């Protein structure tokens, strides 16, 4: 360009600094948290669904499901925690698609902010919301007879793992939301990968009760591995065996989908 002469001396730097990027993430997170707090009905209704699952499995299906050790409610609740954390990610897809449709993403993209902050701020706000919803599930679980059997350390680690797994998967929803670009479709599309993962897993029933071909899938897929790890931490079991596998899955999903999500965001 021959117009370089128009650049003022002391022009802003070409790259967003790390400090500015973190401020951007904090700003976007705060904006999304405000949105969550200001739509209380959405929060209430999205909390009712997992409560229904607890009641359904605890009182309707419990009698028909045999577990090897202990009470079914202790077997069930780690699965419910993980399912709740995972399903929370659907709102990540819906929220991003709604922002895209409403034009505010265009506003953000025209500002000198870190582009990844839009995605990071979205997933962090949804993680914070998940902390509250999972905490609510813990209370509901205790009310229906669930008891922690680990130490305080392993119990916290178990809940932490559940949240980490949900956070990693929220990047899958980032990618879905940016790909479908409309909130209604995002709502439906987001659940498609979740159903086989959650229900063909050890979350609600022992894998040993499934047909052989399904066991082959159910034994190795990330939800089973993570539920088993959370179960081991919360109610006892072979922690080392499951924990590293669960962490590898969470880390892998996080890295792969963060890359895909950011790439999709740049293409909008």
């Amino acid at each position: 360009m021959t117009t370089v002469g128009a650049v003022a001396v002391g022009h802003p730097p070409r790259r967003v600094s790390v400090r500015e990027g973190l401020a951007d993430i904090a700003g976007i997170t705060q904006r999304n948290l405000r949105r969550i707090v200001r739509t209380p009905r959405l929060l209430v209704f999205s909390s009712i669904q997992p409560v229904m699952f607890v009641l359904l499995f605890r009182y309707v299906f419990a009698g028909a499901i045999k577990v090897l050790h202990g009470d079914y409610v202790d077997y069930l609740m780690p699965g419910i925690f993980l399912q709740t954390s995972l399903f929370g990610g659907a709102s990540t897809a819906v929220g991003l698609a709604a922002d895209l449709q409403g034009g505010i993403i265009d506003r953000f993209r025209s500002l000198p902010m870190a582009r990844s902050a839009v995605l990071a701020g979205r997933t962090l706000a949804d993680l914070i919301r998940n902390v509250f919803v999972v905490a609510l599930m813990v209370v509901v679980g205790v009310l229906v007879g669930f008891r922690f059997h680990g130490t305080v350390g392993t119990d916290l680690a178990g809940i932490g793992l559940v949240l980490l797994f949900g956070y990693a998967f929220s990047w899958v929803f980032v990618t879905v939301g940016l790909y479908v670009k409309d909130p209604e479709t995002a709502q439906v599309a987001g659940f498609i990968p979740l159903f086989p993962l959650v229900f063909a897993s050890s979350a609600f029933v022992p894998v040993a009760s499934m047909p052989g071909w399904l066991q082959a899938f159910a034994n190795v897929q990330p939800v089973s591995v993570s539920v088993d790890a959370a179960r081991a931490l919360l109610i006892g079991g072979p922690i080392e065996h499951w924990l590293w596998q669960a962490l590898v899955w969470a880390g892998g999903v996080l890295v792969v989908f963060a890359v895909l999500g950011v790439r999709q965001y740049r293409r909008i």
Partner: protein
Amino acid sequence: MTPPVIEAKGITKAFGATLALDHVDLEVEAGTVLGLLGPNGAGKTTFVRILTTLLRADAGSASVVGLDVTRDAVALRSAIGLAGQYAAVDELLTGRENLELVGLLYHLGKAERRRRAVETLERLALTEAADRQVKTYSGGMRRRLDVGASLVGRPKVLFLDEPTTGLDPATRIDLWRFIETLVEEGATVLLTTQYLEEADHLANRIVVIDHGRVIAEGTSNELKAQLGGAVLEVTVTEGDQLHKAADLLADLGHSPPGEDLTRNLVTIPSDADPKVIVEAARRLGDRGIGLEDIALRRPSLDDVFLSLTGHGAEDGPGQGAGPDDEPASSHGARR
């Protein structure tokens, strides 16, 4: 001589098989308003999206304040403000929170972004509504907030993409006044519009774009001068005599007459000479064609647009549902 603030050369962009922009060249001088005028689907929004770094051109180069739209995107973004066709503000945040968020994303300090939010709210007469959620705002207030959000970073260059589309006339005029104030303060503005009146009123120079190509440019007066000095308008009393009247008067003009059947109106681009009226009245009188009204007026931009494109500006062509409509309709779907 100072270089142009906005400079685009050969900007080309296709969406699939549709060519949205076809070698668009454009320059905007510092402190002026350029009106980019065209019907829906002409490529206006696509062009603005390329200049504001939201979209990459397939070919061509563009710079704003000397910064290249692809190489210097981050620096460029801190020098511009964008207000879109659809108010891109957060409905669940208050007006003040929206502006403070934009200030934060410009990396202003806490005190400074608070100060600018207050100042912007005041300028746009939104102080009373500052702490209400935007979802309670009227359409005009929302649009003002959107324009306000584009001012928080004190940009040198403003891109206003159809800023008054869908606003009522009084609100539109308010927004025009505000844009004029900004220009008086030294801002350079690129404004897209499908309203000829708006371009006429606000823009120093006008670029007419249709189907992705620049078809004319100049000042409002230059464009009007292309049509000659004046337009003779003849309204006849009987609709079935309209065509006959047009034939009779055709040689008084320097381009073919237009016929408006709904208003019994013949328009003939002609010289600004009162004798034309006398002659036209005489010819029609001789043939016994009843006259409702006859007048000689200066051509409007509407006449210019009609003669350039063969269709009006505000009611774009049926096939004009080009790529511009896509983001527009998807953004608008929830409103």
